[in-house]
């Protein structure tokens, strides 16, 4: 029972890390290797609110989320749109965007280090035990899981029930055809990219309540998010959620039943197996 709850909580944590990249890669078609840095930005905002301003770290939402939205929108408009216009094929765009966003991640790390220093930062907030089925779990982790559920619900409703959501799904399936039905591809992609960054920052605020961060850890989050997005099927929100939960459960099961040292091996083994048997991802569509 412990294993399942730990697995679900961990899966929710991974979900928070991957939701942003799902939007950015799936809809806006940008393989954003700087995705993890926005999580750290969210974490910094929460830390700054709590430790330096002595207010509730959830104020970090008010700071980081709009900031991430605006900056990501600007990055898309100024840095990435020229790449998109220039790319002759999907493959060329992916390569270009990987290189560009990789470089961006270095800039982001440098700026954060200049602003906050290189030390680790963390704080204790909601670090009280909550009793679930006889075992203690951190309130901060449960809050993270709750946020993950909330964000997934919002995105789900937005993507399935609104017109904009439908347009984004169309964009995710086929940008060329989407243009034919008068969907403004550039504007929508920019919005999706910006939302992706905002979601990542929101995740970062909550993640910082129990993870220790410093200016350089963004790449670890990017790596995990990448695995989840590809495993779930590119552009597929449901796939990303399922993949995140699956990864969390598998890691928790290996840690509890086999050896905690093998969790990383298990995670990558799962990734390899999924790709071997379903290369387009769990919920992906074969093209």
């Amino acid at each position, binding site marked *: 029972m*412990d294993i399942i709850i730990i697995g679900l909580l961990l899966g929710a944590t*991974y979900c928070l890390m991957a939701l942003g990249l799902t939007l950015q890669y799936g809809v806006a078609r940008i393989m954003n290797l700087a995705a993890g840095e926005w999580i750290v930005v969210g974490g910094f905002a929460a830390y700054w609110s709590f430790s330096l301003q002595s207010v509730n770290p959830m104020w970090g939402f008010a700071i980081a989320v709009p900031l991430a939205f605006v900056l990501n929108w600007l990055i898309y408009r100024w840095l990435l749109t020229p790449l998109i216009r220039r790319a002759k094929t999907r493959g060329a765009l992916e390569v270009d965007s990987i290189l560009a966003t990789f470089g961006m991640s270095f800039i982001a790390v440098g700026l954060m280090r200049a602003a906050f220093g*290189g030390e680790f930062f963390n704080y204790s907030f909601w670090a009280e035990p909550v009793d679930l089925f006889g075992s203690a779990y951190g309130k901060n982790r449960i809050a993270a899981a709750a946020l993950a559920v909330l964000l997934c619900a919002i995105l789900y409703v937005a993507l399935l029930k609104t017109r904009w959501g439908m347009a984004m799904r169309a964009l995710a399936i086929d940008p060329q055809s989407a243009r034919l039905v008068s969907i403004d591809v550039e504007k929508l992609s920019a919005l999706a990219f910006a939302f992706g960054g905002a979601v990542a920052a929101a995740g970062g605020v909550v993640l910082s309540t129990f*993870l*220790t961060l*410093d200016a*350089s850890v963004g790449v670890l989050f990017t790596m995990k998010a990448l695995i989840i997005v590809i495993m779930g099927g590119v552009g597929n929100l449901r796939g990303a959620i399922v993949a995140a939960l699956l990864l969390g459960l598998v890691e928790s099961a290996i840690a509890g039943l086999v*050896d*905690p040292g093998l969790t990383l091996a298990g995670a990558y083994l799962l990734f390899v197996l999924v790709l071997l048997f379903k290369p387009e991802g769990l919920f992906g569509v074969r093209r």
Partner: protein
Amino acid sequence: MNRRLAISLAGLALCASVPLAAVQAQPIKIGAVAPKTGPLAGGAAVTQWPSIKLWVSDVNGRGGLTMKDGSKRKVELIEYDDRTNPGETIKAVERLATQDKADFIVAPYGTGLVLASAPVFAKYGYPQIAVSAITDKTKELAKRYPNIFFTLGNTTAFAQSVADILKKMVADGTIGKRVAMVNVADAFGIELAEAARPIFKAAGLEIVYDKSYPLGAQDLASVVKGAKAANPDAFVAWSYPPDTFGLTELAKIEGLNVKAYYTAVATCFPAFAGKFGASAENVLGAGGIDVDSAEMKGYYERHKKVTGVAGDFWAGPVTYASLQVLEQAIEATGGVDRKAVTEAIKQGTFKTVLGTWKFNNQVIDQFWTVGQWQNGRFVGVSSTGKSGAKAVRAKTGW
């Protein structure tokens, strides 16, 4: 004509001013390469860079280092970020040696990076006073690289001290023999766990839980729950900064109430007490220092004032001490001849913030191994021959 005259006069004045500037003593170039980004950046930001900054500020505040002819030369620092990448460390050291023509280079941060760059230091004849490099191979390395020096200790001693502390607590009846041991699956954690197993057994301790976890693991709940389920009397984690914090928070949440709780690296960081407050009381960790010694008087206040960062209670002061050794060796030889300075380091006796230092075959034999948070300070409780150790206290809940 007037304009041409004016320009030539200006040019002449410029040329005349240059030799005037050169008459002032040339600064001594000190190179430093360490992580500013990458996995080890967090640790380096606490114990490496601030110590270097403090030392440079202190030396230049005194007017610089005194040379043989009585003149004083200030210190000029050249910094490089190696991004926690050994290849970059090597490149930076080469660049400092060949392009920047540094007089001396501060040893890098992190065992792997120190060892990777050792051949380059040796090639150019720079003394390498290593601090953040803990390995059992100090003897062989000292023989292979005649200009490398070790100051922080070796793996076995760290494991042995923990075993000694636990053994004493068992003998006093404070705790039972059951020990839960976990380690981070990185060279540091693996080596310490491997060294610890036979040592713990020999000390009469029973390891009831023995697991490792990957570096950067985001969830350690399974590890802590498993450790708690094994009903241990003591908990030992050979951990790195992120997991030190993560494990401790989880231990608090899950109620792992052992009377002896040890996490390795970063337990001595001010951020540890900052995060855990009263719960940090009586937590054991790697390192320690005699905060009450005369040599350490005023160190932390000065550190905070000059660097803006609170000083830690282990490798930070040792890094500062290693630079004091360099400083005194330079002043002893009265110049910046690297061979002479290396020889001076080998033979000399030095006054540092950690007391008197004398290298024994390029190794400092007396170092702090275990510290404990007592009354908001991380004090040394166990060492290999240092004075000023405080008594170990049992942990009483979180």
